[in-house]
Structures are given as structure tokens and as C-alpha cells.
């Protein structure tokens, strides 16, 4: 039956799932609000031009595209960073900086469906526009960690890197453009075997070659930054290292440093991020739970040059990572009786007392009602 099909990669949420999802979103939203972030809502579609000009390197093959009646191409939003950059740069430019904004939204990407990866998925996240420096970065990262703590993702770990280290070494390498592109791809994919072979064939300084081999596997505290060969003679990389050091100290002040490791192999969308980048993981899930970083070049493409940073959390992934979803106990009852006026009066009183009240609208017998209450795990209130 074709009428029963649902397009691949899309999902219905049943009542129990919605309840959990809402709870996650409400808790996160309340936390964001208490840190001074304000919610915004944007249209589900954007002009393709807006998405492409943002320079986020959004893959057109991943976009759901269609044509507006005026002939222009529209895309379902693939993330919330672009819509918020557009919104902020057009409608909030008179506001005092930094802007602190948050969202709860569905986003759309054409993926091959698998566990935790859908074509439509829900994100909650924040963007801070108009502030740079380690305090801004640390606030956003600490908020991400706090959110995971609040949601009960216990074995949470956040991996931190600075894009400037990789990009600095890349510039210094003297590699050809094509080689640089391939190198980026190999490091992102962590295909260390091909990486080693290719690096052996390319002309680049020995210490930089060594560094590219080490970056993907370096992981730990601040001390690993001193172990990268050649890093100290590349100005871009040195700046990145210093920023990471300052950020790490700031994170200690926020009290979240024990959840954070430095992982020089974390490279997210290199064309887009300009500074600190991070991903959050739980050992219960084969995919990152959240990701984010600093993107100081995006706002200017919307005519409002400003530094910015933020993160997005995958709501479905958080739900998968929460090993035991919290039991949601609620007082429930069914009110039944012959006299509708008295039934309504009782129902109203119970609802005011905080009960979830269902009415018997079918005039069922007492036996039927008792059976129903056992199935639904609720109490029966007979008013006559």
C-alpha cells in the first residue's frame, strides 16, 4: 500500500518519543535562556543563493531543493547557522553586541539513512555574534558541556581543536592547491594509510610532513601542543596554539576542563570555521552529539562583518545516547458517570489539582473502565 509509505530518512514521533524530545528541548531552552540567550525562529526555507553565499561549503547534493513560483531556487535549511546569520545581519544590527541567540529547529540534509542519521533532524543550539576571544569561546563551550550534564549524558567528552594550526601548517607546506585539497580530505576522513603514502610523494619540508602525520592522532591535554614538529616556526599555527592555551585556562575557570580534551584531528568544515572547533561525543553512540566552533568570516557575507561562534546539538542523537530515558511519572485518571454535568465538575476539580484527566465518552461499563485503567496505568473515578 503506497499510502502507508513514508519517504526514507524521515520519521514520525509517537507520543512517548515526543514527550522525551520536548523534555530535552525544554530543559536545554531554559538553560540557554538563563545564560542570556534569546530564542529566534526562521522560515524552514531559504533562497539557495543565501545558503551558497554563506560560504559554509554546504554540499548541494545534500540539499533538498525546489523552485519558488517566481523561478528562484529554494532549499530546506541544512543548518541554523546560515538562517541566523542572515536574520541577525538584516534585523538585529542595531542591537548591542554580543548577540546571544538560540534555536530549536528541524533541519534537512539528504543523507543515506542509518541509525541516528536522518534526512530531517532536530537541532537545538546557540550562536553568539559580535564577540571574539577566549572568554566568548569558553562561554559557548561551557554551555555545551552544561547542557549535556543537564540532559544526563554522563559519559560525555568534548574534543577541541583550532583550525588555525592545520591551516597555518598547510600554508607553510608549499603544497599545490590540489594536493592541499586532498590532504584536507585525507585528514578529515582519517585515512592515515593513504595520507602517509601521499605525503611521502609530495614536496614539503620534513617537519611539516611529520606534523601532518601526527595531527590526526594527537589527543590529550595542553602538553600535546608542544609535540607537533614545526609548529613553533609557523606564525598561524603559533597563534592557534596560544588561543587554545588561553581557552583551556578559561575552561578551567568555568569548571568544565575535565570533560574537554585537545584533539588535533578534529577538523570540521575547514572552509567555514576560522578558529576554535569542537565536537562532543558519548561512548554510547557512533556519531557526534554536537558540534560547533568559531566562524568569523560568515557574517561579512551578509554585509555585517562580525565574529561569531556557536554550536548545534542533535536532539535525536541525545535521545539515543541517554541510556535510560527518565521515567515520566504523571498522575492520570479517567472520570466516568451517567450525569455529564457531575462528571465535568469532577474532571475540572481534578485537573485543577494537577491530574491528567480523560473522560469516558463512550458510556463504558465499570468492568470495561477498570480494564482500561489497568492498561493505561491510571486511576478510575466514578462519580455516581
Amino acid at each position, binding site marked *: 500500500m503506497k499510502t502507508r509509505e513514508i519517504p526514507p530518512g524521515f520519521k514520525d514521533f509517537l507520543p512517548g518519543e515526543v514527550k522525551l524530545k520536548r523534555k530535552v528541548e525544554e530543559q536545554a531552552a531554559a538553560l540557554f535562556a538563563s545564560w542570556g540567550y534569546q530564542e529566534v525562529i526562521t522560515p524552514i526555507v531559504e533562497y539557495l543563493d543565501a545558503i551558497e553565499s554563506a560560504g559554509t561549503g554546504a554540499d548541494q547534493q545534500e540539499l533538498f531543493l525546489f523552485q519558488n513560483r517566481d523561478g528562484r531556487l529554494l532549499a530546506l535549511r541544512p543548518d541554523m547557522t546560515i538562517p541566523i546569520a542572515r536574520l541577525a545581519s538584516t534585523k538585529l544590527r542595531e542591537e548591542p553586541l554580543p548577540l546571544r541567540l538560540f534555536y530549536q529547529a528541524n533541519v534537512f540534509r539528504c543523507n543515506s539513512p542509518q541509525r541516528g542519521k536522518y534526512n530531517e533532524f532536530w537541532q537545538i543550539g546557540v550562536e553568539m555574534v559580535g564577540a571574539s576571544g577566549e572568554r566568548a569561546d569558553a562561554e559557548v563551550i561551557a554551555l555545551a558541556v552544561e547542557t549535556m550534564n543537564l540532559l544526563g549524558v554522563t*559519559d560525555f567528552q568534548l574534543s577541541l581543536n583550532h583550525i588555525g594550526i592545520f591551516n597555518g601548517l598547510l600554508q607553510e607546506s608549499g603544497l599545490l592547491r590540489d594536493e592541499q585539497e586532498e590532504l584536507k580530505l585525507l585528514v578529515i576522513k582519517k585515512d592515515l594509510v593513504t595520507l602517509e603514502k601521499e605525503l611521502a610523494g609530495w614536496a614539503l619540508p620534513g617537519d611539516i610532513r611529520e606534523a601532518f602525520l601526527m595531527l590526526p592522532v594527537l589527543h590529550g591535554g595542553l602538553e600535546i601542543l608542544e609535540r607537533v614538529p614545526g609548529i613553533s616556526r609557523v606564525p598561524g599555527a603559533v597563534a592557534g596554539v596560544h588561543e587554545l592555551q588561553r581557552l583551556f585556562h578559561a575552561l578551567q575557570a568555568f569548571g568544565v576542563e575535565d570533560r574537554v580534551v585537545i584533539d588535533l584531528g578534529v577538523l570540521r568544515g575547514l572552509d567555514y570555521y576560522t578558529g576554535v572547533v569542537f565536537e562532543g561525543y558519548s561512548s554510547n553512540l557512533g556519531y557526534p552529539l554536537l558540534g560547533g566552533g568559531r566562524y568569523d568570516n560568515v557574517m561579512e557575507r551578509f554585509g555585517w562583518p562580525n565574529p561569531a561562534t556557536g554550536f548545534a546539538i542533535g536532539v535525536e542523537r541525545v535521545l539515543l545516547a541517554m541510556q535510560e530515558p527518565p521515567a515520566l511519572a504523571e498522575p492520570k485518571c479517567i472520570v466516568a458517570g451517567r450525569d455529564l454535568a457531575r462528571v465535568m465538575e469532577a474532571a475540572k476539580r481534578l485537573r485543577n489539582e494537577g491530574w491528567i484527566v480523560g473522560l469516558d465518552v463512550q458510556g463504558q461499563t465499570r468492568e470495561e473502565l477498570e480494564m482500561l485503567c489497568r492498561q493505561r496505568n491510571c486511576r478510575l473515578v466514578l462519580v455516581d
Partner: protein
Amino acid sequence: MLTDALTIALPKGRLLEPCMKLLGSLGLPTQGVDEESRTLVYEFPEHKLRYIMCRPTDVPAYVEHGAADLGIVGKDIIVEQGKDVFEMVDLGFGYCRFVVAVPTKKKGAPLTRFNYRRVATKFPRVAEEFFRSQGLQVEVVKLHGNIELAPLMGIADMIVDIVSSGRTLRENNLVELVEIMESTARLIVNRISYRVNHQQLQPLIEKISEVVKNEGVKK
């Protein structure tokens, strides 16, 4: 990944024996591990280790989804499946090559002559990407085995397949036209496990690299 134990996905078949040799050289348990047995999961709690036995083509899936932290599988399968896993070490064994092969009478013909022709293969993705990268278009027929039969029976003009000695090709009157790439067994790692269990995994990965380098079990 749900327990303290590391899980390694091992491929049944021709790669299993060198895998067991490698595990032995690392000082990891190998006793009782036998693909003839019906056991699919081997637990070694004293080593905090677990092996699972998979079909080689299934190894990347178990690793990608985090059912296994590590896996051993041929590069041929990795490129065909394009799964999202980290590829950490070239283990050197299980050498084979991807080639385009054609009937002997077309030996030495330029590849361009096969534009718009039909190619039979178990590896449609590899075939498709190779020809596209050469600016050629071909029609790919996916088969599941005995690929050499396809040109004999006239359902394809050429094949893309893995060869080790080349004997099967010769026996079926086929000849290699172009090599697409070489393949050996690789150590793959789940991308989250690598980050979350880094302290445990990185030393093991380094040890494996070391053993492979020293033993020189190269091609």
C-alpha cells in the same frame, strides 16, 4: 563499545589466518578462535577483549556503527563501501589489485575504446568512479561472483575485479588492461570510539604499526 572490553571485528576467509598471526605477535589471545566453529563471538575477559567473526564485507558496517571498536578488512571493501571509519594502519597482508580486464583478443587496446561499453563487476562503485575519473562513461552490471563469466557469455565487454596472481583471468581468456589500484588489509577504527577510548586504542594501534613494520609482512 558499551562495555569496558574492546571489540575487534575479524574477517572470515583468506584474511583470517594472517589476522590471527598478527594478534599472536601482539601477545593477544588466539586460542580456540576458529572460523569452522559456530561461535561468532569470542570473549577474553582477562584481556578485556572480544572478537567477533564477520563476513569481510560486513566488517566496515560493524565498525561504523560502533558494534566493534576496531576491524580488519581489505582496502578493496573499504573503497567499495565508502563507510565512515578511520583507516589507521596498512597491515601489508592480503595483497591484491583492482584491474580492468578484457578478453585476450582485445589485449593492449586503449581504454577509450571501451567508452559507453558494459562492465561487469562485484564493485560497482569502484568501477563507476574509475571510469568517471577517466572521463569515460560505462554501463555497470553488478554481479555477485564468477565475474569472468560475464564477457564469455557476452553480457559485458570487460570486467572490474580484484586479482592476486592473475591465474583466474588467464584460465578464462581474459587479460589485464589497466590497474585501478592496489589493496591490502587495513586496520579500521570507529570514529567515536577512537576519540572516547583514545588512551586504550592509540597504544594498541601504535603497537600494531610497529609489529607490521618489523615483521615486514609486505606484499
